C-alpha cells in the first residue's frame, strides 16, 4: 500500500474487543500538512483509532500507513516522528512538569537541547515548570500534555481532545499553535467533541460512526456541498412558505425542522440563500431568521443519525441526532437586518 501525499492512511482497519466491534473497516486518508478533525459520537471508535495509530493496541485486520510507510507491530520506530496525546495526559504526579518532560524525553526519539524549556515557554508553563504535576490544574496538565506531544518535533501530531480543560485563552493559543505547525508542513490529527473548535481549526475532517468513516473531505467543501438554508417564519405561515419555496427547489427539498417553532430547512446551496429570501418575500412572507450554509454540528448530527443506535454508548438521554434536536443556531442572522450570513 502506498498513499502518496498522505501523512496517515488506514485501509479496512478492524478491531474487536471480545465480541464487540470497535472498528469495522476504517478507511482514513489524512493529507500531509493539514489539520485534520476526527469527529464521531461517543463509542464510535475515535480513541480506539488513536490507540491503533500509536501502537498501543493492534488491529485485527487492515493496514496502517504512517508518514508514507507501513506501520505494524515491528515498526515502532515510525513513531519517532509522531507526537501523541492520547486520552488524558500521563505524568508522574510527584515529579515537576519539567522533570516529567525530561523523563519522557528519555524515551523514543532523541530530544534536542533546550527543547524542554522552549516547549514550557510555548505552553505557558515556564514559571510553573518546577512545581509538581499533582499541583497542576486540569488545563495545565493538558498544556503539559501538548508540550510532551511536541517533544521530538514530530512531523505528525495525534491529539485526542486537546482543548479538554483549557480556558478560552488557552484554546485560542492552542489553535494558533496547531495552525502554525500545519503551516510549517506538519500534519495535525485532532480528535474532538467540540465541533465549533474543530470547525475553526481543521482543514479536513473525517466523521466516524459505529466504527466506520461516514464522511471525509475538506471542511469547506463538505459544509457547502451538504448545505441547506434554514428559515424561520410565523407558525401560521409554514404551509404557505413551503408552497412558495417548492417551485424553487422541488417538494422534497423543503422540510419542517422538528418542533412547532416555524423552522423550515431548504436543501439548496448556501450561496442561493438570497433566492430563498426573495421567493418568500414575493409570496408576502417575511422570515424572522435565516441561516445559510451548513454548520458542522448539523452535518455531524445528520451523518451520525441512525448510527447512534449502532454505536456503543448510545445517545445522551436518547436525544442526540434525533429529529427532536433543536435547530442549529450557528451562523444565524436576522433576515430583517442582516440577511443570510
Amino acid at each position, binding site marked *: 500500500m502506498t498513499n502518496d501525499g498522505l501523512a496517515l492512511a488506514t485501509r479496512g482497519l478492524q478491531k474487536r474487543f471480545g465480541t464487540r466491534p470497535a472498528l469495522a473497516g476504517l478507511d482514513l486518508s489524512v493529507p500531509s500538512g493539514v489539520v485534520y478533525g476526527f469527529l464521531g459520537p461517543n463509542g464510535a471508535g475515535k480513541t480506539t483509532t488513536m490507540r491503533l495509530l500509536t501502537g498501543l493496541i493492534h488491529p485485527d485486520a487492515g493496514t496502517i500507513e504512517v508518514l508514507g510507510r507501513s506501520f505494524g507491530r515491528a515498526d515502532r520506530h515510525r513513531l519517532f516522528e509522531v507526537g*501523541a496525546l492520547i*486520552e488524558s495526559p500521563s505524568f508522574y504526579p510527584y515529579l515537576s512538569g519539567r522533570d516529567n518532560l525530561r523523563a519522557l524525553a528519555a524515551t*523514543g526519539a532523541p530530544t534536542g537541547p533546550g527543547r524542554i524549556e522552549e516547549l514550557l515557554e510555548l505552553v505557558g508553563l515556564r514559571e510553573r515548570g518546577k512545581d509538581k504535576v499533582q499541583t497542576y490544574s486540569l488545563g495545565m496538565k493538558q498544556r503539559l500534555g501538548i508540550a510532551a506531544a511536541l517533544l521530538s518535533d514530530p512531523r505528525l501530531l495525534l491529539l485526542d481532545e486537546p482543548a479538554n480543560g483549557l480556558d478560552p485563552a488557552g484554546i485560542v493559543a492552542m489553535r494558533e499553535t496547531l495552525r502554525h505547525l500545519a503551516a510549517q508542513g506538519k500534519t495535525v490529527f485532532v480528535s474532538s467533541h467540540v465541533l465549533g473548535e474543530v470547525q475553526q481549526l481543521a482543514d479536513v475532517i473525517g466523521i466516524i460512526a459505529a466504527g466506520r468513516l461516514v464522511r471525509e473531505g475538506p471542511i469547506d467543501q463538505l459544509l457547502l456541498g451538504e448545505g441547506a438554508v434554514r428559515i424561520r417564519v410565523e407558525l401560521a405561515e409554514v404551509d404557505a412558505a413551503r408552497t412558495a419555496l417548492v417551485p424553487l427547489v422541488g417538494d422534497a427539498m423543503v422540510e419542517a425542522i422538528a418542533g412547532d417553532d416555524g423552522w423550515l430547512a431548504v436543501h439548496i446551496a448556501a450561496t442561493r440563500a438570497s433566492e430563498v429570501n426573495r421567493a418568500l418575500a414575493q409570496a408576502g412572507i417575511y422570515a424572522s431568521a435565516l441561516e445559510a450554509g451548513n454548520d458542522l454540528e448539523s452535518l455531524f448530527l445528520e451523518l451520525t443519525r441512525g448510527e447512534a443506535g449502532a454505536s456503543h454508548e448510545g445517545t445522551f438521554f436518547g436525544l442526540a441526532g434525533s429529529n427532536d434536536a433543536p435547530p442549529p443556531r450557528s451562523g444565524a442572522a436576522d433576515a430583517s437586518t442582516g440577511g443570510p450570513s
Partner: protein
Amino acid sequence: MRIFVAGIRKLLRRPATFVTLGLLVGLLGLILIAVSATAGQRTGRAAQESLLLVTFPGAYSLILSFILGLGGLFAVIYGAAIAGSEWTWGTLKAAVARGESRSGYQLLSFAAIVVMVGVGLVLALAAGVVVAIIGANIAGVSTAGLNDTETLGKMPELMARAWLAIVEEGALGFAIATLARSQLAGIGAGIGVYFGEQFASIFLPDIVKYLPFNAATAVVATSGTGGPGGGAIARLEPNVALLVVVAWLMGALLVTAIFTERAEISG
C-alpha cells in the same frame, strides 16, 4: 541507557523510595533497641539469645537476615508500586506511543530498581549496625567483635547474595503488578502472594522451600529466624537457594517482558 538513568532519577524523587527505606530502618531500629532495653529483664538462655542481635560479629549476619526477611515484603510492595504506577498513571502508554520498546522500557525501569535496592540494602545495614552498637551499649554487651576480620571478609558475598534475593522479591512484585496493570491491585496481590507463601508452609512444607520468598531467605546462611516462616520450615542449602532465586528472578522478568509486549495498552 537514557531510560535507566531517567529511571534512577525518578526513583530518587519518589516518596515510595524513602517511605520503604524509612519503614525498614525504623522497624529494624525499634526491634534492636527494644531487644537491648529488655534483655536485662530476662534470664538464662532467653537473655543470651535476645542479645545475639546486638552481639558482634554475629550481629552482622543476623541484621542482614532480618533485612532480608522484612525487606522481602517491602521489596515486593516497592516493585509492585513502581510497575503498577506505570500502568495506573499511563506513563508506560506515553513511552510506547513515542516508539519506545515495551519490554526494553520495563526491563530498564527494573534495572533502576535493582540499583535502588542495592543502595537501600547498604543504607539499611549501616543503620542496623549503628543501632546495634547503641543497643549493645544499652545492654552492656561488648562491641569488641565489631572489627572481626573473618566476618567482615564474608560480608561482601553475603551482601551480594542478599541483594540478589531482595531483587528477586522486587521482581515478583514488578511482574505481579504488570499482570494486574494497576498499582493498587499489584501491591495487594504482591502482599497476598507473600503471605500466601507463608500460609502454604502449613500444607506444603516440602515444597514451600522452593517458593520465591523462602528461597530468597535461604540465600544468606544464618542461624537467625528473620525470614518468613522462621525456623519452622526446612531451608534450602544457600547455594541451591541462590540458583532457585535466580530462576524465579529470570521467570519474573520474562513474564514481565512477554506480557508487556503482548498487552493492549489503554487508559
